[in-house]
């Protein structure tokens, strides 16, 4: 029996389109649901089902702030009338060197509810819902490789071991960048022995300079492919503040 490793909710991080919004939130919940169709027939003694399509939503509340371009009210009010945004939820955090290897979810979705509330005896607050959208890429579960931080030079992250079996189903590489990036190129490398690493063909993102945004490979709507070997790490060249995540399929 593997021992429980619990974590406190106060350490969670949430990002959207390159912006860290953890400082505005007090709770965040991602709920995944699976449709099911009943296929019970005559003479059955127990109902029978087959699993269908997955659906999920993100729900969060926090404090109202519209004081800057990246403040939560500025972002959410805009998202209410725009298409899919790239959300990122790390229950154990994605900032600081200790966040390497933390599990996280990359979520493509649009906001279908945003509420601002004022009460005489309370701070101004917000609540919102995000509908995950399969057309935008849906949801991917993976790991934080490069925690959100400013990198002044090129480098590599430590590696993550997926076990003894390579995958031929590819994966999803996601990068969130702040507005200080310069010639940043983020690539996925893999290895069979955790010693000799090579770039995984195609899994490279080149964020636009000086732009706060999020990037995904493969693009939404494209099924991941390719062989990803046992050990993986992120390599980057250039400079800037960014977070890198990878989900192997």
């Amino acid at each position: 029996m593997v021992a429980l490793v619990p974590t406190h909710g106060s350490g969670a991080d949430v990002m959207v389109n390159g912006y860290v919004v953890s400082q505005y939130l007090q709770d965040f919940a991602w709920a995944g649901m699976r449709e099911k169709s009943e296929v019970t027939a005559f003479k059955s003694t127990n109902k029978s089902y087959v699993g269908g399509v997955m659906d999920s939503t993100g729900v969060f509340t926090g404090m109202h702030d519209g004081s800057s371009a990246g403040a939560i009210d500025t972002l959410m009010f805009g998202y209410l009338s725009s298409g899919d945004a790239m959300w990122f939820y790390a229950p154990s955090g994605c900032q600081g060197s200790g966040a390497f290897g933390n599990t996280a979810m990359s979520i493509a979705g649009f906001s279908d509810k945003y509420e601002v509330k004022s009460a005489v005896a309370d701070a101004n607050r917000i609540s919102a819902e995000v509908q995950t959208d399969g057309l935008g890429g849906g949801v991917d579960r993976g790991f934080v490789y490069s925690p959100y931080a400013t990198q002044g030079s090129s480098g590599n992250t430590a590696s993550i071991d997926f076990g003894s079996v390579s995958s031929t189903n590819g994966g999803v590489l996601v990068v969130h960048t702040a507005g200080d990036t310069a010639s940043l190129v983020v690539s996925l490398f893999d290895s069979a022995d955790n010693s000799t690493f090579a770039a995984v063909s195609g899994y490279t993102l080149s964020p636009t300079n000086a732009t706060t945004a999020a990037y995904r490979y493969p693009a939404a709507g494209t099924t991941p492919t390719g062989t990803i070997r046992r050990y993986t790490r992120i390599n980057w060249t250039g400079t800037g503040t960014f977070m890198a995540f990878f989900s192997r399929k």
Partner: protein
Amino acid sequence: MAALSPSHGSRAQFFIGTPGTPGTANFEISQYLRQAALGMTRDKAEVTAFRSTNKNYVAGILDGTVPIDGPYDANVDNNMFGLLTLASPANTVAYQYGPTGIGSGLGILYTGTCMVDKYEVKSTIGASNDWTGNIQLVSVVTRTVQ
């Protein structure tokens, strides 16, 4: 009259399949659970007719769900997310639930086949990261005296 033999919920054990081998309940999640409830139900069709003084029913087909929740952990997150996203039909996941433990002499064991139709992860500033899930039963529950 047989005497009551009560037991504490903290002794419960729960095993479930993995995304790689869903049909074998060899992944223990006891250490990740605060509660589990095996809820078995029976459809009923009302057949009350004129002149009845009490409603009449005929029993139908069995159904059931197992809501579960506990403290979040990357290990259980990996398994539950994987079971939630299993390729369709996704209804071959094995489970074992022992209210007083799983093993010889440890009381009643409930087993069967299911699918995971809900998995939620939640972070709140004043609490631990938590998860909740729902298991939909897809076969008759087998009750065994261990």
